[in-house]
């Protein structure tokens, strides 16, 4: 097995040891680990809020938390999970670590901007923590006006500033990836030889670049309105509350695709590797990623079907929403077809990937229901929608995140994780997740509204089931923390390519050396050249492995 590393004695982890070498690093791999730390911290904050919410909702009278506190809890859960976990999760960790490796580059195009993005992320986190400590905000993560600008008695401005700054972290990351993928591909790495994960990060970065600034402006406007008492969205001063919703969702709809596209790219890596065969329909998959990114900009008002937009607008946006579902459907069918005539094993990354396909499909199909105008009238702003988007974001993105984390764990850390525990965690996650969120579809159709701290007693049985599932999920998400941490010290050392995968990242040592490759690789093969019949594969540098 050839690798492109000479006998390099040090790797990116061991090369330098000082704190300054971490906090002032330009190495994309170290920055990825810095981001891992930050987003994990916020994941637990968001998870803590979710825990309190589910504990509170066991009782219809809602006695555990004061109403004001409950309202601030769901707002915090949304803000933290959306901007401080899901949006950065895969791009800033695995994207940062692996995009240069997968395209055969030594680093991203702008390493200092990469580090700056991490600092901005933490600065935004400080604003958010400040907001939390002084009492939080209760507007929901959507900040609807005029409640947020004129009536809310929480700390709207610090929250808006936190998200504003966070947006610039996003923009810097996206800019870096777009430019890197355009300009730093190794010789022979044509666009149509890029691994689908790279395509996904590219698509997501374009969306980040173009959508996030609109959010920044929207937040700036509500902060100014609240601070100065002017009436940009205040109807009594001539403003239009619906205009806020349009501006907010113009970003926030593409944002949900920011959250799912990297996961889709990741899943393509996992399924091909563990089914040992090329992806079914590579170019269809790549074009589908780009199509989702583009069409996602034209569907935003499907969040406003009952808000008071014109019937004509609603019809147009519903149609566009059905269009955006088509490339997603193509991807699901292609992933399924990639299993055909494969040679499949069920290691933890594959379990997470298969779980993704199942849960994402459920989420996506219920998305069709919400896209249907007349049905949405009934289920909008109920738990049906909550279930729909949690199936996509948690069942989808978080599953893919864990799948990728396990898949690339040996490469990043040089250690193998304990496979049995990982499979247990994957299965418990799948079961706990369904128990948590499936009852919420039923709750929603029955008429349980969102953001309610108390509810009619008839709904209690579903809430209890959901909370039981949440407790299982909590265990499932804690398990990896334990055994992955264990593996850092006691796990067996990993070779360069424990999974026998075809990407360029597997041609370097585990962990990689500081500058990734001793010599720039020359790419001679497309990705995923696995042969399921005899287990051989061709790596992307052209080397054949029996």
């Amino acid at each position, binding site marked *: 097995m050839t690798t492109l590393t000479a006998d390099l004695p040090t790797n990116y982890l061991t090369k330098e040891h000082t704190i300054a070498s971490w906090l002032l690093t330009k190495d994309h791999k170290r920055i990825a680990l810095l981001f891992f730390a930050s987003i994990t911290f916020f994941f637990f904050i968001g998870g803590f809020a979710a825990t309190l919410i589910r504990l509170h909702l066991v009782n219809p009278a809602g006695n555990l938390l004061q109403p*004001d506190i409950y*309202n601030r809890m769901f707002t915090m859960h949304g803000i933290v999970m959306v901007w401080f976990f899901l949006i950065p999760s895969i791009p800033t960790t695995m994207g940062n670590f692996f995009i240069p490796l997968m395209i055969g580059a030594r680093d991203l195009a702008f390493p200092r901007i990469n580090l700056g993005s991490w600092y901005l992320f933490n600065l935004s986190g400080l604003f958010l923590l400040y907001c939390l400590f002084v009492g939080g905000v209760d*507007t929901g993560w959507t900040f*609807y006006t*005029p*409640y947020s600008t004129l*009536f*809310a008695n929480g700390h709207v401005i610090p929250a808006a500033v936190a998200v504003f700054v966070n947006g610039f972290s996003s923009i810097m990351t996206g800019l870096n990836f777009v430019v890197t993928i355009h300009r730093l591909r190794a010789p022979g790495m044509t666009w149509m030889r890029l691994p689908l994960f790279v395509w996904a990060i590219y698509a997501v970065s374009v969306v980040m670049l173009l959508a996030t600034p609109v959010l920044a402006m929207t937040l700036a406007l509500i902060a100014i309105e609240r601070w100065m008492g002017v009436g940009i969205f205040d*109807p*009594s001063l001539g403003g*239009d*509350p619906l205009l806020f919703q349009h501006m907010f969702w113009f970003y926030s709809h593409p944002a949900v695709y920011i959250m799912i596209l990297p996961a889709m790219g990741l899943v393509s890596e996992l399924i091909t590797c563990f*089914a*040992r065969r090329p992806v*079914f*329909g590579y170019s*269809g998959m790549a074009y589908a990623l780009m199509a989702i990114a583009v069409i996602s900009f034209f569907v935003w008002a499907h969040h406003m079907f*009952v*808000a*008071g937009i014109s*019937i004509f607008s*609603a*019809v147009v946006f*519903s149609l566009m929403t*059905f*269009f955006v*579902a*088509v490339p997603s*459907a*193509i991807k699901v*069918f292609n992933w*399924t077809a990639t*299993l055909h*005539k494969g*040679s*499949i*094993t*069920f290691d933890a990354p594959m379990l997470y990937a*298969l779980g993704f396909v*199942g849960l994402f*499909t459920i989420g996506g*199909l219920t998305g*069709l*229901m919400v896209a*249907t*105008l*007349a*049905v949405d*009238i*009934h289920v909008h*702003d*109920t738990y049906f929608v909550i279930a729909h988007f949690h199936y996509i974001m948690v069942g989808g993105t978080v599953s893919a995140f864990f799948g990728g984390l396990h898949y690339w764990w040996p490469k990043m850390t040089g250690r193998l994780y304990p496979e049995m525990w990982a499979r247990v965690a994957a299965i418990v996650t799948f079961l706990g997740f369904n128990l948590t969120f499936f009852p919420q579809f*039923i709750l929603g*159709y*029955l008429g349980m*509204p*969102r953001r309610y701290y108390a*509810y009619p007693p008839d709904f209690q049985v579903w809430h209890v089931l959901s909370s039981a599932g949440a407790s299982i999920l909590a265990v499932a998400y804690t398990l990896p923390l334990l055994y992955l941490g264990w593996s850092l010290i006691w796990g067996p050392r990993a070779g360069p390519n424990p999974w026998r995968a075809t990407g360029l990242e597997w041609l370097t040592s585990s962990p990689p050396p500081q500058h990734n490759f001793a010599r720039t690789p020359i790419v001679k093969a497309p990705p995923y050249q696995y042969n*399921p*019949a005899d287990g051989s594969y061709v790596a992307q540098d052209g080397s054949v492995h029996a």
Partner: protein
Amino acid sequence: MQWVPFWPRDASVTAQSIDMLTIGELALVVVILGFVFGLMIVFGLRYRRGSSADRSHLVEKTWHWEIGWTVGSLAAFLVLFVWGANMYVWLYEPPPADLEIYVVAKQWMWKAEHPGGQREINELHVPLGKSVRLLLTSEDVVHSFFVPAFRVKHDVLPGQYETFWFKPTETGRFLLECTQYCGTQHAHMGGVIVVMPQTEYARWLTIQGVHQSLAQQGEALFRKYGCSGCHDPNSTVHAPSLAGLYGSIVHLQNGETTIADERYLRDCILLGASRILPAGYPPVMPAFAGQIGEDDLIKLVAYIQSLAQTQRASR
């Protein structure tokens, strides 16, 4: 649909149709899920590592399959889209209703005003089998009027009227919920829609202790706020006549035309000459924003609505 264990009650004409659509979609969901899950399980078993299945000749021309399932998905999606859009238009373009009721939302209660002047808080009495059109507005933030049993919902905005309709098919008491976060007591901004047989409803109306209809109260306000000073037929000010105005087409100064519906009337009163100027009139009408509350506005609009039937006075 009550034979399904956890299906909500349906109590309106539109509820049944929406349920049909939902069932149709669920059927498609189950079919697609079955297809995907089934294949995943079959392939996962058949092609697991070490099995003796034939793995040669992987499909080269994947395009055929991809175009197939793309077209198939798109066709199915378009059917759902058209079905749902059609129903949406039916729901949100109210036909002429038997009964129009004004609803004002505020933190954290619902106020309903019947045309006969009857007022309710957090309750709405309506007759069985009659189509009811609601005109909703908010006094403060965005709320949302949701009756699960009727499968109807509409956001309620400050500063304008929104409208939709329903037609109850069962008597009883049905949960009303606010479903747009509106502050601390959002979860307790609920109420009850009480559907009564028509005779009982008629009796209920008479025992509310109301002496004046909305329109009659509006006429008094019309004088109190000085509207008659300009809009009275004998006034010396050249102001548009309001007789027959409601429902007619108005030509605006900027060349556009609009229908003089509730929203138009409300905007004229609140914004005066700053916003909507009918062609041929000087911009002298003052804006009453901030001076007339939602309750009084409703009565004024109801009064102008009632003038739709009177003859046009000579000027």
